[in-house]
């Protein structure tokens, strides 16, 4: 009995001790959410003429909040693989209503006009998509015409009047003309006289009436947060251009910024331009304003008021003299300094929990003059903060970005007054398919992780790369969209840091598609297993 008691006691004690010995933290992973970046901006660059973008795009960020800007991967060195720039704000930084985040993104490439894209991030504006076109300075596009001349100089000065006129093309029928008086010498940005035997002068005239020119307008769109008005104050403003032109000159390889005497500029304007506040086309005697733009600072500056006349070719035009070079815009500029940000709230119960990439277009009240087109990923109930709306009534259209079918249209009477603008998206005639793509990333030695959010592009399988369109944002490894069709095959592309991942000819076989990526899973896509593994290691870093 005693032995049994002893044996039972020992067994009892050992059993309890052994049973409770599991470490509570056994196989627990302190896995940080990959979605570290809270505020994201994506800039999609396109080539103005539809060609492939150059591979040597350089990206730099400047401005008051530049120090807090990284790419989606948290890297300071920001790149533009496939023309997509991903920008993320340090998660410790939050915009406020009185202090939105502001910075500028400069994009340069050889033989292309530099771009300076201002970015403003409002509270709760967790994601926004901007678009800008890169314009090759040596060729015409449907919305621009370029002319370059080379003139010999003596002692760094012109010996005779120099005339430069941009060509009238089949699509750009207005021209810009420049006249440089004899005896003009040239200075660089530092004010130093330039010495050289040859002046290279180039003017690019844009068709302000062509919606394609919007992507080429300095900045990202017609609104700018950095405008020095006639009162000398700097603030935001909305441009309604009747014409704009970009003039560059070089002497001895250095860029000309100022002249020893004024040069004369004549810009033929869009004859269909309707001055703000009117419903009639512009006419002789109307007053317009000229603003100049410095790409290096991203700032517009008031130059002067001009009167519309008919030039020698009987076209409506404005003429003015200037002593410096830059982009000039003529038209109406309306201050938005006192405007409050608004919100768009989208209602689309037919979307379920899916997203849809849309194009939100703003028109003047004529319903034809496009003022802005923004790419917006919508879902039912999504609230999108908006800034940069014009301070006058506009019409809007919301299009399916893929099919271009109109989903909603209406009028915004007071876009500048803040508040909410409700937009109900009409249900398409055919039932939509909600396709779910789930990406599971399993890190070696760690297990499944929550991958960071990224933007996913798609195109029909085998279509040219220029047809890649934004499918949506993959958040926490999942994207649910109505833009894919079961039974169809697509090519998918995503960027991470400076790397690109493509998955070609992927057929949507069911509404719920999950793809696992990890050492123990099959690698997929067009890249080598080693490349895929390197992406995996990158995603699993520090996890």
């Amino acid at each position, binding site marked *: 009995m005693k032995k049994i*008691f002893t044996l039972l006691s020992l067994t009892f004690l050992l059993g309890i001790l052994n049973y409770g010995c599991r470490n509570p933290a*056994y*196989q627990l*992973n*302190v*896995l*940080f959410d990959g979605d570290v970046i809270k505020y994201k901006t994506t800039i999609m660059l396109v080539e103005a003429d539809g060609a492939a973008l150059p591979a040597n795009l350089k990206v730099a960020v400047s401005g008051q909040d530049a120090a807090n800007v990284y790419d989606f991967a*948290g890297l300071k060195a920001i790149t533009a693989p496939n023309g997509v720039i991903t920008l993320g704000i*340090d998660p410790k930084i939050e915009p406020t209503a009185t202090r939105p985040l502001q910075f500028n993104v400069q994009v340069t490439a050889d033989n292309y006009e530099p771009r300076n894209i201002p970015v403003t991030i409002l509270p709760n504006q967790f994601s926004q998509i901007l678009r800008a076109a890169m314009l090759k300075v040596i060729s015409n596009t449907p919305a621009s015409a370029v002319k370059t001349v080379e003139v010999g100089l003596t002692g760094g000065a012109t010996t005779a009047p120099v005339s430069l006129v941009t060509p009238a093309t089949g699509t750009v029928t207005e021209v810009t003309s420049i006249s440089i008086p004899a005896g003009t010498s040239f200075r660089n940005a530092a004010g130093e006289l330039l010495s050289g035997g040859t002046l290279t002068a180039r003017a690019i005239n844009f068709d302000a009436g062509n919606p394609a020119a919007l992507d080429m307008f300095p900045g990202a769109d017609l609104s700018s947060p950095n405008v020095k008005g006639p009162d000398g104050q700097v603030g935001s403003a909305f441009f309604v251009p009747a014409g704009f032109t970009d003039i560059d000159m070089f002497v001895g390889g250095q860029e000309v910024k100022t002249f020893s005497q004024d040069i004369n500029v004549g810009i033929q304007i869009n004859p269909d331009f309707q001055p703000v506040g009117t419903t009639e086309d512009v006419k002789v005697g109307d007053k317009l304003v000229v603003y100049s733009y410095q790409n290096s600072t991203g700032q517009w500056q008031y130059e002067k008021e001009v009167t519309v006349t008919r030039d020698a070719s009987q076209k409506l035009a404005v003429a003015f003299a200037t002593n410096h070079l830059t982009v000039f815009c003529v038209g109406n500029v309306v201050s938005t300094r006192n405007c409050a940000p608004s919100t768009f709230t989208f209602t689309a119960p037919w979307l379920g929990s899916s997203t849809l990439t849309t194009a939100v277009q703003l028109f003047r009240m004529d319903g034809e003059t496009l003022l802005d087109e923004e790419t917006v990923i919508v879902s039912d109930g999504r609230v999108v903060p908006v800034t940069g709306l014009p301070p006058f009534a506009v019409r809007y259209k919301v299009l399916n970005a893929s099919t271009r079918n109109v989903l909603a249209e209406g009028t915004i009477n007071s876009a500048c007054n803040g508040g909410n603008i409700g937009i109900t998206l009409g249900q398409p005639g055919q039932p939509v398919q909600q396709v779910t793509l789930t990406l599971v990333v399993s890190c070696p030695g760690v297990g499944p992780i929550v991958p960071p959010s990224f933007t996913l592009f798609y195109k029909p399988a085998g279509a040219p790369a220029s047809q890649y369109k934004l499918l949506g944002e993959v958040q926490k490894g999942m994207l649910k969209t109505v833009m894919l069709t079961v039974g169809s095959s697509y090519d998918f592309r995503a960027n991470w840091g400076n790397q690109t991942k493509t998955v070609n000819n992927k057929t949507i076989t069911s509404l719920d598609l999950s793809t696992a990526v990890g050492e123990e899973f099959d690698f997929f896509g067009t890249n080598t297993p080693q490349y895929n593994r390197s992406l995996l290691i990158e995603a699993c870093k520090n996890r």
Partner: protein
Amino acid sequence: MKRHFTSLILGFVVAAVTGASAQTTADSSRTRAYLSAHVGTSGAGLDVKVAVTPAFGFRAGASILPFDYNTVMSVRAQPAKIDIQADFNNAHLILDWHPFLKEKGLSKKAFVSLGAGYFWKAEGTGTASYDGTYQYGDISIPSSELGELTGVVEWNKVAPYAGIGFANPFPMRKVNVSFSVGAFYMGRPDATLTGTKLLVNTQANQRQFDENMSFYRFLPVAQVSLNFSLF
């Protein structure tokens, strides 16, 4: 399980009643009731012990165990600051049986215990936070911005108890010491794990934590009692 436990208790009661008549009366001077202060792994508390017969007695009392522990440890190679707080507060009724009264020495003092406790508090909270700076690309994120994992574990309110111990069945002194070991069976706890900020996605950890805590079904008891004779 409940039925088996009830049967055991009944068995002990029957044994106590029948055993009572079998005991000698030579120890009529022994103490029959004590006030007992105990301290051990289940906390500190007080009991009233009553010896119904030389072989059988019961104790009724309460224990409280407040627990607070802070440390820095490595969780899968990640330095983590751990803060654990737990409270096990119970009222209990335990039957003690001395099966070897006819033996000599230590054997005579051995007893077996069965009983149950009502835990008005049987829960633990553990908080883990990354103890260092997390590097996301070129972004350094201090631990204060990373969030924390909080695990909450709750056990059953009523728990059966079994144990063994050593106590003098015929103490003549006013004060004596006894020792017991055993365990409350707390059942499988409800374990939840939640995260904040960058640790908000805890689905995989939640499952693992629940499994880990399922091993913690016993509250081990090893305690020393100081007994004061009441009469």
